């Protein structure tokens, strides 16, 4: 029976209550030759065609972004994961993640590309009917048409359903009249096709495909932004724009399904793009540290700098482990859904919805990883880091938006917990049984059993304990606060962070275990694992303590704090030496090398 359970794939969010084996995960070390060649192609394109003209891109040189998008289209980068029947190359989701990562190093260009291939193209692919797909997808996958996604309005950002843009069916029933205003529209300056969300008769939130040449559609001025200055961001105005009824996307009143489901994939892709940008900046950090001399030493000789270099690598390697793990889970789930009769686009969307919790975590931690790495890249560069003449300044400005778009990190943290609890209430995830057994465990004598000597047993135990800690805190919060929990956002953030730490730790462990099994894990890979587990335990404890003290008191609080301490236990290691070894590998390779 136990074997049977293990072989069944993990459902979305189920990582919290079930163990996973290293065989279930996908690690980037497993890419095949074709995937590597495609990745190299994307990297060569960014290095040779995009980065050399970054300055011109930032100044929005006329026609440059369109030219580069067309070039990406010629290379097949815009249609890599589009099914072949719609003019794409039919590559799997993992390959798509890899290509997004590689393009992600391209700054503003990467944003334009991601908006086009993701939120611009996918609504039609996933929700469009056959005529709509046949009409638009082949042109979008070659780049002949460029797409943009219009959800946000001046008065509705995170609260997307409060949109005011209105659609009214014409008297002859042939078209909808669109009126309203959208803002922060990426690719707004040149898109040929807009995915627009509007309320039919001011009520039914619905998606539409709107062509840019429609009468009454006008583009605002370019926004003046802190970063990603080369990405076109405009307001789009709709004044009595006639949208043919055949351009209604999906079902009337079901626009929220499009808007939110597209964001699930968008969030993982944002993490992938951030990954590409992050690795580039980690490499630039190492390169600078190994050539800059102060006090007659390369600054990479100094412990303070080694710490930063190592920490950059630890964050990258950890988030990357989770990102490819989730990509494989989504790909596998999509195949299951195809097996049960769904066509590929719908299956992939269903799969992303299943793993929406993981996608939200990746969005948050991917964007925060990038922010950390660019910040330290500036710091390592010292005064030059503050100069626009050098790469870190632009990367620093470009990074900041990632914590805001595709759902702010706050919204995504809230969603992480909200989605888990909703699944528990619907009976899709049984959080209650394990939560109850933890309450019993709290009352019992702590487990002093001798240490398991299997490889990575201490890390496995730590993860199992972290999950118990989450169930204890979340279980108690639900019991105590019930419906009022929704209003306790600080507490929800604490719980989201605890969940994320455990998910990231587990993903990292599965990767290093798998690498170890196939004989490619180095001492430094184990150092990354050990430092992250060591530090995650403290972060976990901190979040848990703040969570518990916000709603419990007296004996109950004391008992749970003791439990939390038990569940945050980690092996004390010399993190300084670990980081120095990690840094030594980076310095020797003179680039991000894990």
């Amino acid at each position, binding site marked *: 029976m136990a074997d049977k359970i293990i072989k069944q794939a993990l459902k979305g969010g189920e990582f919290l209550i079930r163990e996973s084996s290293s065989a279930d995960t996908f690690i980037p070390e497993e890419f095949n030759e074709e995937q590597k*060649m495609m990745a190299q*192609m994307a990297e060569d394109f960014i290095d040779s065609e995009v980065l050399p003209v970054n300055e011109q891109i930032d100044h929005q040189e006329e026609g440059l972004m369109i030219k580069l998008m067309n070039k990406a289209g010629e*290379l*097949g980068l815009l249609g890599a994961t589009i099914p072949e029947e719609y003019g794409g190359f039919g590559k799997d989701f993992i390959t798509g993640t890899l290509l997004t990562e590689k393009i992600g190093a391209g700054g503003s260009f990467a944003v334009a590309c991601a908006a086009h291939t993701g939120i611009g193209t996918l609504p039609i692919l996933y929700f469009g009917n056959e005529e709509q797909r046949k009409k638009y997808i082949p042109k979008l996958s070659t780049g002949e048409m460029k797409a943009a996604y219009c959800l946000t309005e001046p008065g509705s950002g995170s609260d997307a359903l409060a949109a005011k843009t209105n659609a009214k069916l014409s008297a002859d029933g042939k078209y909808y009249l669109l009126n309203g205003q959208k803002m922060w529209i990426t690719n707004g300056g040149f898109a040929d096709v807009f995915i627009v969300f509007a309320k039919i008769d001011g009520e039914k939130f619905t998606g539409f495909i709107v062509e840019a040449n429609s009468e009454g559609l006008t583009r605002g001025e370019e926004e003046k932004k802190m970063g990603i200055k080369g990405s076109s961001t405009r307001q789009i105005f709709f004044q009595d724009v006639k949208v043919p009824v055949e351009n209604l996307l999906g079902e009337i009143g079901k626009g929220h399904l499009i808007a939110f489901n597209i964001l699930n994939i968008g969030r993982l892709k944002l993490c992938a793009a951030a990954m590409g940008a992050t690795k580039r900046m980690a490499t630039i950090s190492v390169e600078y540290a190994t050539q800059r001399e102060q006090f007659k030493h390369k600054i990479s000789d100094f412990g303070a700098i080694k710490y930063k270099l190592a920490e950059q690598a630890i964050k990258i390697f950890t988030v990357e482990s989770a990102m490819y793990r989730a990509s494989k889970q989504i790909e596998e789930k999509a195949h299951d859904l195809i097996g049960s009769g769904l066509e590929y686009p719908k299956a992939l969307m269903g799969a992303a919805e299943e793993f929406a919790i993981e996608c939200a975590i990746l969005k948050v931690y991917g964007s925060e990883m990038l922010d950390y790495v660019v910040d330290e890249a500036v710091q390592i560069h010292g005064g030059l880091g503050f100069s626009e003449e050098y790469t870190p300044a632009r990367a620093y400005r470009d990074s900041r938006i990632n914590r805001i778009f595709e759902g702010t990190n706050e919204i995504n943290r809230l969603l992480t917990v909200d989605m888990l609890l909703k699944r528990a209430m619907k009976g899709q995830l049984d959080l209650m049984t394990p939560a109850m057994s933890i309450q019993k465990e709290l009352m019992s004598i702590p487990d002093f059993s001798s240490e398991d000597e299997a490889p990575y047993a201490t890390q496995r135990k730590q993860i199992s304990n972290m999950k118990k800690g989450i169930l204890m805190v979340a279980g108690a919060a639900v019991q105590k606060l019930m419906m009022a929990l929704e209003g306790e956002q600080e507490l929800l953030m604490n719980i989201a962070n605890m969940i994320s730490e455990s998910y990231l730790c587990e993903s990292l462990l599965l990767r290093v275990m798998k690498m170890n099994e196939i004989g490619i894990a180095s001492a430094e890979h184990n150092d990354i694992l050990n430092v992250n587990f060591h530090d995650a335990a403290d972060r976990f404890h901190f979040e848990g303590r703040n969570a518990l003290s916000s709603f419990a008191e007296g004996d109950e609080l004391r008992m749970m704090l003791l439990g939390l301490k038990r569940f945050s236990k980690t092996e004390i290691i010399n993190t300084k030496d670990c980081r120095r070894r990690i840094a030594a590998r980076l310095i020797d390779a003179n680039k991000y090398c894990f």
Partner: protein
Amino acid sequence: MKFLVCISKAPDTTTKIAFTDNNTKFNNDKVVFIVNPYDEWYALVRALELKEKLGGTVTVINVGATDCDAIIRKALAIGADDAVRIDAEPIDAMFVAKQIAQYVKANAYDLVLCGKETIDYNGSEVGGMIAGLLDWGYVSLASSLELNGDLATLNREIAGGYETVVVKTPFVLSAAKGMAEARIPNMRGIMAARTKPVAVVPVFACENYTTILSYELPKEKTGVKLVSPDNVDELVSLLHNEAKVI
């Protein structure tokens, strides 16, 4: 027109060079190999351009073991029609040239293109040797190539200027910068590379003339000392006592 492009594998330009076995072997561990840039960017791409313009076929040939399959598929992804791998570890330039010449003798080609050198050993020898073994014409360091029937016009960069030469096919050339622009393979090319034919040809037995005795890394560069222009005494002292050149 049948083009044959010789490609060899070379360590990626960021490779840290190290040796093993008492400095007698190059340490392959963790080295990423690429198609030698002169072979890929100039020889292969120009052959493809001419094929696209004039028709014909482009075959790539490599002397190497199975670890060269990845670079062969890269060349196919860029656009070569098929590939030949002569299944042998390349020993020295003459060995490689003999393998390729033997293959060319058995399979008619109009033009054999090499890169001007491989970026690891920088021998610049194979092209000339192939031409010698075949008794064909040879143009080295060609920076442009135009074909008109069986007549080829090539530019060669020489000290202070260019030399233009005309040569009749078949002949061998080595390609230098200017011949073409690097091409990034596209998705279609990469996917097609899997299905293009790669013929594995057994090694042609021949004697090899050289054996590598040892490798040595260049001495690490020492720091630069700045001497103020009005401090000639210090300069003289440094040149005499430290650099020991005067």
